[in-house]
């Protein structure tokens, strides 16, 4: 079952403002007193944010803020994860060519939203046919993209596996 729109909004607000619950000082180093009372950004958190960042059509200020904080606050051991996050967000920002799976997913969501905005309810076949034509992907690439996204959503707790 999918989460309600309200639950999703709460999740999204939490994710994009996560940094607010992880105060550091102005130099970006963790304040010991604050750390004692608030959750730290762990490598697992960074990994979660990287995965969420992959879902976004473009980076938000919340993610930029989080990136800044992680960049300044983490010990050297987190360097690799920070770099991954930087790369994810920068690839979103500059519209570098994405994988065919990503292209397929983005096209399908765009088409669905455009159709709904026009008062139509496209069928699965119509959505997939549009992606094949417009994003130049194959049915196999669409299927792979959908399974990948579904698994990601389940792992993030946004869909229940069936």
């Amino acid at each position, binding site marked *: 079952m999918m989460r309600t729109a309200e639950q999703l909004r709460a999740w999204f607000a939490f994710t994009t403002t996560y940094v607010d619950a992880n105060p550091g000082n102005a130099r970006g180093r963790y304040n010991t007193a604050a750390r004692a009372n608030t959750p730290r950004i762990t490598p697992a958190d960074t990994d979660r944010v990287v995965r969420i960042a992959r879902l976004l059509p473009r980076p938000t200020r919340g993610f930029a803020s989080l990136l800044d904080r992680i960049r300044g606050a983490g010990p050297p051991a987190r360097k690799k994860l920070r770099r991954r996050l*930087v790369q994810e967000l920068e690839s979103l920002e500059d519209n570098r060519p994405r994988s065919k799976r990503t292209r397929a997913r983005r096209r399908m969501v765009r088409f669905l939203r455009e159709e709904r905005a026009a008062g139509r309810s496209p069928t699965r076949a119509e959505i997939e046919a549009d992606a094949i034509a417009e994003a130049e992907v194959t049915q196999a690439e669409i299927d792979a993209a959908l399974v990948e996204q579904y698994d990601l959503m389940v792992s993030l707790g946004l*869909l229940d596996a069936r």
Partner: protein
Amino acid sequence: MLDDLQFEELMDLLAIIEELVDATETVDFSELPVPT
């Protein structure tokens, strides 16, 4: 391969996420410091 219900749930969710992002202030990464 996803069944039709899974497809519908996933597409609805992805559409909602994009709508939420549309409603959120976005950022120009040129504003941020270069990673070291």
